[in-house]
């Protein structure tokens, strides 16, 4: 059975110091300009060759803990430090960071600041040449590391021209070239699309097997953590509040949630099924296969004899009776004369729709969206906003109709108070002072920041800054809202808050276009999903339709939400509906087990 109570380990360390092991015994650590301790009573140990996942809320101390391991704390970030860290048998306080770097490789979140070389080859060579290795050896190491991360043949490529996933793999190669015994990665996947994310975990897993490297990774990727790691350490308020096998953590939804970690869809479905009083003794299911096998055995499905009827089950949630607010006709966009980013986009979006734009990075989602407020102009074809061709309208004029919330709030915040920040857009629109006051207040209230209106934006946390960015656009009271990757880099609670906010906006009557890699968001909140691939629209329809087009999704490198995968697998056992969310799937199954399913 599952352990309900969290295992709190402040027990003496069991791992013996050997190469590749980590022993952390920190009494406390406080950043020099901070008021409170970031780490407090942090004790853990990691044995050679383990694959460790470090999880927890944003601000729990994950990055700080990882920076202990190669001596950045206390050498680079001097502060109030008391404790001892043994990494690879070396006391990190006694060695320079550069010396420790030879044995403990650190990959950070922001790829941009970790690439030094103009070409891929030069970048990977940066580490070993700092260590004065011989030329021959460096060439060998560069080749080996690039091969390990799957970038062989990229040697002469210019680093700034790589894609996000390639850049992240390059940063890993750069660290690998120093042949570390311990590889530490701080949220390396937060900027990647689901495909890129999975690749990183697969890569780490094979590295561990082949080179016996100890791997410590932090992140919010529940599914991958469950699938790939040996052990999860959960941080809260600067100390370990739980550690154990990933399966134990994720099979207990309440425990996972209490740490601010997103439960996997599979375990949530299992949890719902058991809490609905359906089956008392559900076995632990940690993979789709297990769950499908279990459901197919314990729920009596009638052999499906009427598959023909099934297609009518798709909800027709079309809003075609509402006026068209966005219309694209043969929209084409070329970056250069030969490289096209969008090809023959034809589409109509009606007032009040909640559209999720999905697809892998570089598929054209953002390029399309930037046409809506004129940041980009069509190379051929036309875009109409509320019936007006954008060709003749300036971006500042369009900003009255289309609000665009960018992914990184720090690319727009420049004022010294939240109030001024929100007011800026209104001043641009030439709104009178009285109107401005009410609008700013309303927008700040909506996102829940009205109390902080005199604060400096940079004293806020990332999640709050993101809310502020939304408020700045909200105040402009545009009918159409484009929100670019609203949940990227946020922990689960931040993601939930953002999703609730978008739902609220939708209910208020806004037409919403959300660019996202978060399939759960698309499935649960959007009433229309548009899939982009290679600059074209490959699928367009309600989530129940789109997420069951397995072949086309696969071609577009999109993985549907797990509920849809399970629903699809269960179809061969006679499931008739097209559930894409957890609740829809659970409802379906409950009806099944009560035998209430209506064949007609």
């Amino acid at each position, binding site marked *: 059975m599952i352990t309900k109570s969290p295992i709190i380990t402040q027990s003496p360390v069991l791992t013996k110091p050997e190469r590749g092991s980590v022993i952390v015994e920190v009494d406390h650590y406080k950043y020099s300009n901070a008021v409170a301790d970031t780490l407090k009573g942090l004790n853990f140990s990691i044995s050679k060759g383990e694959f460790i996942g470090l999880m927890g809320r944003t601000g729990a101390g994950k990055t700080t803990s990882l920076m202990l391991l190669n001596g950045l704390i206390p050498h*680079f970030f001097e502060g109030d430090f008391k404790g001892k860290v043994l990494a690879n048998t070396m006391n990190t306080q006694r060695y320079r960071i*550069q010396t420790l770097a030879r044995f403990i490789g650190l990959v950070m979140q922001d790829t941009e600041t*970790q690439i030094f070389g103009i070409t891929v080859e030069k970048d990977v060579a940066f580490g070993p040449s700092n260590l*004065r290795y011989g030329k021959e050896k460096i060439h060998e190491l560069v080749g080996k590391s690039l091969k390990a991360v799957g970038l062989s043949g990229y040697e002469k490529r210019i680093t700034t021209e790589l894609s996000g996933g390639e850049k992240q793999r390059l940063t890993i190669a750069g660290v690998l070239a120093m042949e570390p015994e311990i590889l530490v990665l701080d949220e390396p996947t937060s900027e990647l699309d689901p495909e890129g994310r999975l690749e990183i975990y697969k890569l780490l897993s094979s590295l561990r097997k082949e080179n016996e490297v100890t791997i410590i990774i932090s992140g919010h990727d529940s599914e991958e953590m469950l699938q790939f790691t040996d052990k999860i350490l959960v941080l809260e308020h600067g100390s370990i509040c739980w550690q154990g096998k990933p399966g134990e953590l994720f099979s207990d939804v309440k425990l996972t949630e209490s740490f601010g970690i997103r439960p996997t869809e599979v375990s949530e479905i299992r949890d719902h099924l058991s809490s609905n009083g359906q089956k008392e003794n559900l076995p632990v299911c940690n993979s789709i296969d297990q769950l499908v096998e279990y459901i197919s055995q314990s729920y009596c499905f009638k052999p499906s004899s009427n598959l023909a009827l099934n297609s009518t089950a798709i909800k027709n949630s079309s809003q075609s009776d509402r006026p068209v607010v966005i219309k694209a006709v043969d929209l084409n966009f070329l970056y250069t004369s030969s490289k096209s980013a969008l090809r023959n986009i034809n589409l109509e979006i009606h007032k009040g729709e909640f559209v999720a734009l999905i697809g892998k990075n570089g598929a054209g989602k953002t390029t399309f969206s930037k046409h809506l407020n004129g940041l980009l102009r069509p190379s051929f074809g036309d875009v109409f906003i509320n019936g007006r061709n954008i060709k003749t309208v300036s*971006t500042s004029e369009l900003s009255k109709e289309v609000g665009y919330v960018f992914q990184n709030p720090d690319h*727009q915040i420049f004022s010294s108070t939240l109030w001024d920040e929100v007011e800026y857009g209104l001043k641009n629109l030439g709104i009178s002072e009285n109107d401005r006051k009410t609008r700013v207040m309303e927008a700040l209230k909506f996102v829940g920041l009205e109390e902080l209106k005199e604060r400096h934006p940079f004293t806020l946390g990332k999640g709050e800054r993101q809310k502020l960015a939304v408020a700045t656009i909200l105040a402009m009271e545009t009918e159409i809202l484009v929100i670019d990757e609203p949940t990227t880099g946020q922990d689960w609670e931040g993601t939930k808050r953002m999703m609730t906010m978008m739902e609220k906006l939708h209910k208020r009557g806004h037409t919403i276009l959300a660019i996202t890699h978060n399939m759960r968001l698309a499935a649960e909140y959007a009433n229309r999903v548009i899939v982009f691939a290679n600059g074209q629209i490959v699928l367009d329809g309600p989530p129940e339709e789109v997420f069951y087009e397995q072949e086309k999704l696969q071609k577009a490198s999109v993985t549907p939400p797990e509920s849809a995968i399970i629903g699809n697998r269960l179809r061969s056992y006679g499931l008739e509906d097209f559930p894409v969310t957890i609740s829809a799937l659970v409802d379906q199954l409950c009806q099944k087990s009560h035998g209430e399913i209506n064949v007609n």
Partner: protein
Amino acid sequence: MLIEYYPSESVIHKLDVRTKSICFITITVISFSFFSPLVNLFLVLSLWIILRNINTPLARVKQIIRPLMPVFIIMLLITGLTYSPEKFQMKISKEILFYLLPNKSLPFCLGGLFYGITLVCRIFVMVLASSIITFSTPIEDFLQLMKKMKLPYQMAFIIATGIRFIPTMQKKSEMIQEAQRARGSQIGQGGIIKSIKSYIPVLIPMIVDSLRMSDNLAIAMLSRGFGAMKTTTDLDEIKMHKCDYIISLLSLLILIAALRASSQNIGAL
């Protein structure tokens, strides 16, 4: 300028960066030692022929020259009008073409015009010569050269990293501008003061972001062992070939000859 390397198989591309630097110095010294436009016109012509034959885009050079055109015309007029004929040694230079004002005041003399042409040619020489050297030499070669000149490797690193970050910063600035334009700001529009003020919403996020990046950069450098040893391994070494020695020697001989000639008043106006 430094990042505009265009790979090609031309002879100039194959020369060592040191050879090219010597030639560059020779050309610069010659250009500035002679006042007669003939010498500089000859240099401009030869450089133009070289540039045309090394398979690099001419459009870039034209882009630099085009906005300078009005400046060139102003320079010719000013030199023509401000140099009085007595200042020149050659007979032809003392000749007066016309007077700008009645009563024979403000003469426009041929010597002044020639001098103006020389000045304009010098600008051309500099633009062409530096274009040839940057188009045909990869940045790594320049860094190697700095190292050979015994400059500390940290300096070469700063330059290389700076160049590496130019596209990144450009992209950042574009993203910030887009974010502000989406809020209705009209960047760079309106009168002088208004247009300068309109850049504040771009500048501040840019500065804040750069500060954050510089911290991350320092962390990443340390994590890759920067500064672990006194020096670093050079991956590829620049090499002088036979052809490099010959050209360097020729270039030096020409330089000496030119300096002698100029000291004997050849090519004066």
